[in-house]
Every structure is written in C-alpha cells, then in structure tokens.
C-alpha cells in the first residue's frame, strides 16, 4: 500500500504545489490535495479556526479538514525563510502547531523547518529529512529533489509569462490546456493586481477577481509576472528598513516598480480582513500611489463574507473610471 500525503490547497500551495507533488511522486508517495476552494471548505474552516484569524488561515483550516481523514500524513512545512533576508508571516511559522493543537484527529504532520539563514543547504537538508521520515533512500531523495526543483523552475517561468497558477499546474500535470490566458486586452487597459498569491489566485476567496478583470478586457500583471531580478533592483523602496515578510516585501517592490515604470493604468491591492502585514503594506502602497496621481489606486478587502455582487460593482466602477479617464486624457492631447 502506498503512503498518502495530503497537501492542503491554500497558502503556499499556489507557489510550490508542482514542486512538492513531483518530489513526493518521485518517492513513490501518493499525493492527495484538497484542490480548489469550495463554499463547503470555507465554511468548515470558518467553523474550526479562531474567529480573529485572517481568511487565508481560516481557508487553510478548511482545506485541512477536507483531506485529513483521507491521508496518512499532512505536509505542512514550517517555511521560515527562503531567500536569506525576509521571513514569512508569523502565522506561517506557527502553522503546523496551530493545526496540530486545535484540530481533533489530525494525522501526523510533516513539519520540516526550512530556514536558509541557517546555511546554504538548509532546504536540501529539509527535503532529506522528509525523505528520512518516509523511509526513502538518500540517493533517490536527492534525485527527487533535483527533479522537483526543475519543475519549480518551469512553473515559475509559466507564471512569469502571465499564466495563472491553476492553468500552469494543469499544464505541467497534463501537458495540455493553457493557451487562452491573456485576456486579449481589448480595451488596452493594463492593471496591476497586488496581494498575496494565496488570496489573488484563489478564485473562490478573491471572488474571481483576475478572471473578471480579463473579462472586462483588462490585462493583468501580478508580482509573479515580474522577473525577480527586476524586483530585487528596487532595493528597500526608499524606506530605511525592508519589510520583514517575504510576500509583503515582494508586493511592495512590485508596486514600486510598476508605479515608477509608469506603464500601467491602475493598481488594485487585494487584502484580507485582519491581515497583519497588510495593515502596513497597504499604507505604504497608498503613500506611494499619492506620489503618482496619474495612476488610480484602489484597495479591495475580502473576508469570508465577501459577495460576488459587491465585488463586481466596485470592479466595474473602477474599470469604467480608469477607461473614461484615459479616453479623456487622449482627447485632450
């Protein structure tokens, strides 16, 4: 009987799932994922998690509830730092413990710690430890890791080309699909959508934000579409101190880069209610937006109550506003 490892479809799922899946499959382990969010998953998560937690964490709880009875292990790595500079939000750091001590009957959790500040090979070591726990020989673990890294690179390249994670995952899994990802940009508008991958790419919790924009003929750029080197060039975004958190740092850099490049027509910041890092990030982006008054900026806040209609209205209004403004400016010239 093969071992089954469960990977909840939330938080880091959108950035690393293809890599994790390859790694486990190479070791002959079956991967079970809860996949896309449904109403049921969200409701379960809201019921299980602490009321003061943010939606993405509640959603994670829901995904765990969805698969915990179907698997032998849950894979919830404690990802602390992957670039030797920024760490993840405290809730990511405590995630395995939060799940372990607040949900009943969870299967054993594989919670290896990944912290590149401890040394160059910290991540490899972490994967070797996973292999050890699953009882696989070291050599095959190393090979599986290398293959997984290769898949991650391909995945990231697809994201940079503008594919959404779901499309890219489908493509890597079935070598099919994809193609129609670029909204054909009828209106010639180009928006930046900033926010955390687990919020903007989860089509249920973001109420289909990106697809909606594409339907209005707007071309969408996210932080994942920008080459990491370009983001790294932003340094600390003229702040005395860098933001501690990996995703916030990336979003702020992306905002800085896009504002300064001046090739976009609008900026949307999608934030989750009660998100700690965003309380700072949003203010910093807002102050940056003030300096570029020719680029409209809007914040959208989501939580477990967010309804489709409210979101549509606000998006339509924003898109219309930007479009008219652009036309008016074109006429004046």
């Amino acid at each position, binding site marked *: 009987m093969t071992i089954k490892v469960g990977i909840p479809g939330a938080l880091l799922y959108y950035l690393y799932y293809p890599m994790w899946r390859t790694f486990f499959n190479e070791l002959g382990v079956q991967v079970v994922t809860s996949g896309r969010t449904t109403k049921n998953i969200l409701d379960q998560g809201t019921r299980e*998690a*602490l009321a*003061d*937690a943010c939606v993405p964490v509640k959603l994670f709880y829901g995904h765990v509830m969805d698969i915990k009875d179907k698997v032998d292990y849950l894979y919830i790595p*404690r990802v*602390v730092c992957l670039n030797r500079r920024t*760490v*993840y*939000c*405290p*809730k990511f*750091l*405590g995630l395995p*413990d*939060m799940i372990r*001590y*607040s949900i009943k009957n969870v299967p054993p959790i594989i919670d290896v*710690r990944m912290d590149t500040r401890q040394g160059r090979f910290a991540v490899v070591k972490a994967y070797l430890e996973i292999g050890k726990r699953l009882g696989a020989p070291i050599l095959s673990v190393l090979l599986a890791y290398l293959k997984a890294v290769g898949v991650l690179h391909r995945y990231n390249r697809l994201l940079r080309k503008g594919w959404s994670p779901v499309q890219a995952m489908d493509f890597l899994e079935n070598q099919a699909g994809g193609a129609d990802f670029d909204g054909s940009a009828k209106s010639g508008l180009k928006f930046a959508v900033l926010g955390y991958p687990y919020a903007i790419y989860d089509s249920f919790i973001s109420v289909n934000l990106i697809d909606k924009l594409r339907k209005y003929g707007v071309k969408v750029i996210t932080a994942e579409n920008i080459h990491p080197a370009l983001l790294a060039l932003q340094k600390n975004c003229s*702040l*005395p*101190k860098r*933001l*501690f*958190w990996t995703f916030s740092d990336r979003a702020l850099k992306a905002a800085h880069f896009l504002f300064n490049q001046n090739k976009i027509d609008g900026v949307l910041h999608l934030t989750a*209610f*009660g*998100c*700690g*890092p*965003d*309380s*700072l990030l*949003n*203010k*910093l982006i807002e*102050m940056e937006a*003030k300096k570029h008054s020719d680029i409209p900026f809007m914040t959208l806040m989501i939580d477990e109550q967010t309804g489709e209609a409210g979101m549509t209205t606000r998006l339509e209004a924003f898109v219309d506003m930007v479009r008219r403004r652009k036309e008016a400016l074109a006429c004046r010239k």
Partner: protein
Amino acid sequence: MPKVTFPRMGESWRTFKMLLEDLGNEVVAPPRPSKRTLDLGVRYSPEFACFPLKILMGTYLECIEMGADTIVTTGGVGPCRAGEYAMLHHKILKDIGHDIKMIVFEPPRHYPLNFIRNVLALNKARVSIRGIISHIKRAWRKLQALDNVEKMSHVTRPRELTSGNTSRVYRKALEWIDQAYTTPQIMEAEAAALEALKNIPQDPQRMVLKVGIVGEIYVLLEPASNLEIEETLGNLGVEVERSMFLTGWTRDNTWNETTEGMTVKEAAAPYLPELVGGHGRDSIGNTILCAKRGFDGMIQLAPFTCIPEIVARTILPRVSRDYDIPVLTFFLDEQTGKAGMSTRLEAFTDLLRRKKLLQARTNCVTG
C-alpha cells in the same frame, strides 16, 4: 535646542526622562494616553494596524503639539509588525506635515553600530563615555525600582482592608522615586516605597486568587491601553503576576538572554518551537510555567489582529486543557469598553474562586 520625546509605556517614562536630561536634552515627557490621544491616533493610522501603533501615533502627535521635534524609539527585527512601526510612524508624520527627527534603537546585539551612533546623537551635553555608562546604570537602577514597587503593589492590592489604599500609596511612592536622583537616593526611595506598601492594613483571612498575565508587551505594560486591568483585578481580590516587566524584557533583548528567558522558551517548545515574533511563544511558555507553579488562572492580553498572539491563542486552549488552568483572552482595541471588560473579569474570577473552593473541599474529604 531640540526637544526630545519617546513612547510612553507604563511608568518607565520617569526613567527615560531622567536619562535623556542627563545627556543634555530637553525632554517633552509623553502624557498619559487619553481619549484624545486615541482619537488622534486612530485618525492618522491605518485602520487595521494594531492598537499600540495607534496609541503611539496619538502620543507622538500630542508631544509634537507640546513642542517635541525628535522622537526616540525602538525598532525590531521581526517578524512582528512592531519592528516596522517606527518607519511607518515617521512616514505618516511627514505625510501630514510634521518635520521631525526619528532616532530608532535597533537591538544592540544585532546592530552595535546603530546603538553607538544613536547614543552619540543623543549626547548633547558631550558627556564622556564613562559618564554615559554611569548615567545608564543609574537609569537602570531607577527602572528596577519602579518595577519592584509595581510588583509589590500587585501583592498588597488584593489584600488591603480599605479599597483604594494601595493605589493611593503607590501613586505617592512613584513621586518619591521620580524625585530621587543619585543611586543611594533611588535605593532609599525604593525602600521607603516598599515599606509604605507593606504597612497598608491587610486582611490575612481573605482568599486571594493568583492570576498570571501574559501577552503582547505594550498592552501589558501600559495601563491606559489595557484599561487598568491589574487594578481592576486587584480590587476583585486577585493577586496578579505579570509575565513581563521592562527590565526583564530589556535584559533578554539587549546583550544576552537570561536563564528566565531560556526557561520560558524551553517550556513552550513542545507546543510552539518557533519564534513567531512579538511575544507569542512567551505567552505559551509563561502559561505553562505559571500552571506548574499552581496559579489559579491566566489572562492573555493582545491587541486586535496581533499576529503572534493569534498563533498563541490558537494553541492555548490545548495548553489550558493539558495543564488544567483556565485561560481568558482579551483582544484589545480602541472599541474595548471598561464595563464589558470588568464584567468578564468578574465572571472569570467567580469561576476561579468556585473551582478553588471545590478543590479545597475535595482535598478535605480525601485528605
């Protein structure tokens, strides 16, 4: 001449005022946070920033009105938000048109140069290095005196015969320490204060509950932000032991970790082996240590949306069950009302008292 101010955290401002004046600065002492402080803070802070940021924002604005033009504060290395606050405060203050200077102290263990540079910038009187060290030592002694007297007040308040006595004596004692300048004077004032508190008429028969308070440092240390929870509890007949005092925290975060700090970490390890920033891990560790020392209950104080405390809060129910110790959590923000809090505290202490009585009775029967 620049006028210097700093954040207010409980009674510690008396020490910082003395230290900064010794170094030749003109000091604007931060006023006690009031309704107006909060209103100002809320108006200019991001809506979902945590409570301490808003109070500090308001305090800074009030101090600026009083003429301050330099703010001395602390930074941090994350992942708790507080480490970025100085930067955000500065940006917001500039944005609304206040041109002020911000001197941010990062942990000297990680940034020794930053520490030296800041001290030199604040050394207006050109005190020699030896002088600076002796000033810091004396300030440190004063901080310890303030902490010790506060600890003593937590012991006497639940046992006093006439309610309000302790608070009155405590307030007087603070003035004595405030007036003391040299080290012998500080020690004398401290001794006198402790003596005065000890001499308050007490009721030895009263059943006093022992409750530990854990949580985020600012709401723990600033009574104006936690609606004087310690005084309220004391008046309900509860002896409070706070897990954190400024002297202890400073020791843990400047040069070396103390053994106390290490024990807390160790205690928390089975439940939360990772530093999640802020005081999330300390909250868990201290709850376990207090349970082992036979406390009757624990109270966790945290600002609304505080990330590390939410992590701790998720795990605490399990700790509470494993160690059989009741835990009550308050998420505080500008909307928290004193009446609601008092009601919850009364209910909580009622439960603890009943539990204690029940235990005493069963012990009598079996023993």
